[in-house]
């Protein structure tokens, strides 16, 4: 085939053609790990599409052939009313552009296939939920909105909150269909093959959205690379109570410590973890609930580390107790965690000392000294979100801007809000630190926190703020306004009380690594850390 490659151990082409995500999936195949069957539309097809404004000749036939192969290997029918095959279509460029391009899940769930899936599983709610996710993915792409934007456009869509889950889902599906018809002029085709072509076109087009162009301009990524589109059999983390989804690092990205770290959700689909729409549990809970999945995951992480000779990150789903790996990349740890992993890997003789030195940049050293919360087994972590502005702040919880201003007179305050608006500005100004339930690293709260240089944690899933009752809920617990908490704007942790703060979690590793740096440069004089590392880098790169 000219425009399509199967995802298999035999593919031997570069990430420039396959995209980084598909290239990682090929690595997983080579390592003998379980990856949902699929294929990739290459970046070359994307370049032709962007140049000519239409899918290249022959791609349509190749898609049909590739789908037939998928049907054969899975024993399911694409768009079929019995044992329907559903696929995901995901973007994946040669260069990572996180969150900038489109993904369409549950593709092929036409009305007939949705009914088929409902009959097969005996779970109409699951089938309708999956179809709603498909349509929402298309709606987001067509309107150029993110998921929150689609929600806002739908506003108070009819058919919500009737108490009947199936009726609610049907109502929501109707509302999204209306939105698509309004914006696109016609509905999403109720034919699986035509849906696939549309999804591939949508994903390839998303290379050129204004957000993606801005991202490339600011990160020196050329505009002519194009993205690949990965088509894979769906595995459903929302299939039953022995299913779920999660993300895992082979080592702790906060400290670099050699223990797996991550989050898992039972009975959910993958985008829920990444979007922070639902409650996650610590990865370790897998060990008790699904021991075989846990063992399989540990084995996968160890094999993948062996391949990259570095800490790694995976996204995984398990369906009815069976583990599948959906994505892999090197861990890309920063600051003290990067120092610790490099030194540990050298000590483990996985890499040499020289390579360890080259893996740590001056930028990492500058971050080694960012104050961090020293967590121990006794640390009571109330909730976790995304670190949006580094630093540690401790203070008493306030749930409104007014409360924060009032309480700040008596000592430091942590302002905890569902999200922030201009109304919260004076509360943000009065607070020592900020926590929000919603939003990502570019949310209003995050932008304002950084402009004021205040530690901030955003996107804390499952965090509820009861303004009337003056309390905050997370992880099944409720704490009142005035409770002392500590937040770490690097790791995104929110802890009860005031755990110790440290300026580096990797002092011993840093000391050892800089000793190696002095050995390489031959200069053991008294200098600052960045100079010691840079002298070693100069010898290693030019000497």
């Amino acid at each position, binding site marked *: 085939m000219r425009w399509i490659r199967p995802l298999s151990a035999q593919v031997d082409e570069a990430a420039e053609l396959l995209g980084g995500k598909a290239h990682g999936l090929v690595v997983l195949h080579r390592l003998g790990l379980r990856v949902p069957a699929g294929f990739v539309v290459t970046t070359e097809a994307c370049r032709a599409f962007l140049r000519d404004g239409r899918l290249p000749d022959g791609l349509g036939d190749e898609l049909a052939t590739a789908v037939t192969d998928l049907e054969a290997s899975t024993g399911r029918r694409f768009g079929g009313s019995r044992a329907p095959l559903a696929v995901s279509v995901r973007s994946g460029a040669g260069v990572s552009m996180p969150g900038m391009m489109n993904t369409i899940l549950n593709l092929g769930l036409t009305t007939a296939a949705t009914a088929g899936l409902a009959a097969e599983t005996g779970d109409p709610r699951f089938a309708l939920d999956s179809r709603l996710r498909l349509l929402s993915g298309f709606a987001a792409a067509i309107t150029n909105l993110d998921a929150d*934007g689609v929600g*806002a456009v739908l506003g108070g869509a009819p058919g919500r909150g009737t108490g009947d889950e199936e009726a609610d889902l049907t109502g929501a599906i109707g509302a999204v269909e209306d939105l698509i018809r309004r914006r696109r002029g016609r509905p999403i085709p109720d034919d699986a093959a035509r849906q696939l072509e549309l999804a591939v076109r949508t994903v390839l087009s998303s290379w050129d959205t204004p957000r993606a162009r801005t991202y490339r301009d600011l990160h020196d990524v050329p505009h002519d690379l194009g993205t690949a589109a990965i088509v894979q059999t769906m595995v459903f983390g929302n299939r039953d109570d022995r299913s779920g989804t999660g993300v895992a690092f082979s080592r702790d990205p906060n400290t670099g410590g050699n223990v797996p770290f991550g989050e898992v959700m039972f009975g959910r689909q993958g985008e829920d973890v990444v979007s922070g729409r639902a409650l996650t549990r610590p990865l370790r809970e897998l060990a008790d609930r699904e021991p075989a999945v846990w063992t399989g995951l540990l084995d996968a992480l160890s094999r993948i580390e062996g391949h990259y000779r570095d800490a790694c990150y995976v996204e995984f789903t398990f369906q009815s107790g069976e583990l599948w790996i959906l994505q892999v990349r090197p861990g890309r740890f920063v600051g003290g965690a990067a120092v610790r992993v490099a030194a540990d890997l050298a000590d483990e003789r996985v890499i040499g000392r020289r390579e360890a030195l080259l893996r740590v*940049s001056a930028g990492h050293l500058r971050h080694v000294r960012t104050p961090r919360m020293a967590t121990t087994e006794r640390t009571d972590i109330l909730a976790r979100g995304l670190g949006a502005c580094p630093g540690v702040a401790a203070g008493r919880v306030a749930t409104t*801007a007014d409360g924060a201003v009032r309480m*700040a007179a008596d000592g430091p305050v942590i302002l905890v809000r569902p999200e922030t608006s*201009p109304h919260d500005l004076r*509360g943000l100004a009065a607070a020592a630190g900020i926590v929000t339930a919603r939003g990502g690293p570019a949310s209003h709260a995050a932008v304002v926190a950084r*402009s004021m240089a205040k530690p901030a944690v955003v996107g804390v899933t499952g965090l509820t703020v009861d303004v009337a009752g003056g309390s905050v809920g997370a992880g099944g617990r409720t704490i009142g306004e005035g409770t002392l908490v500590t937040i770490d704007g690097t790791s995104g942790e929110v802890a009860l009380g005031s755990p110790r703060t440290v300026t580096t979690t990797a002092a011993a590793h840093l000391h050892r690594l800089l000793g190696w740096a002095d050995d390489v440069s031959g200069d053991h004089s008294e200098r600052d850390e960045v100079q010691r590392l840079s002298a070693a880098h100069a010898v290693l790169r030019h000497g």
Partner: protein
Amino acid sequence: MTRPEPPATGTDLLVLHALRCGGHAGPARVAAATGLGESDAESELIDLAVAGLVTHSGGGFGGWGLTDAGRAAAAERITGELESAGARVALRAAFDGFLVLNPELLDLCAAWQLRSVDGVMTANDHGDPSYDARVLARFAEFDQRAAVVCAELSAALPRFGRYRARLAEARQRAASGALEYVTDSTASYHTVWAELHEDLLATLGIPR
């Protein structure tokens, strides 16, 4: 068919609504938000306080803010204005355009504050003029598209024209070297944009 242009919003409502969208503020910020002179804004605030709609609090983070009655009055009158101008459909359509731009603006603000150095996200110390110039160039391009949406908004309701002026001023000040006008000051592009977002939600009656 052309509809007659909706009448200009009364200054008392402008001031009331500025506090609704911008939160607590002093007369200078109210003046900037409404386009009134500072003493006119202050006089309006005092009248509203007499009517029980706004109140002044002291202290470091104090200022003028709405009372519960003021919040209710602001909501009722701003909805009344929208409906009597028959502007809901046009404003709603322009809001959809705003929602497309919103994540882009937030991306740009994040890129202004953070940049990747050696693969590590680092606070932008603004020591690299070429990086800053690149972000500001993207802002300039973004601002042209924002102007289109702002024009649709002020065609629907003239009071939205004030945002165009404030955004343009923030961008020009930033471009001429006052970097705090991107994300940091109370008159920054990001602050004005966030107030516009709040205004659209308040005017259309959309909960957050």
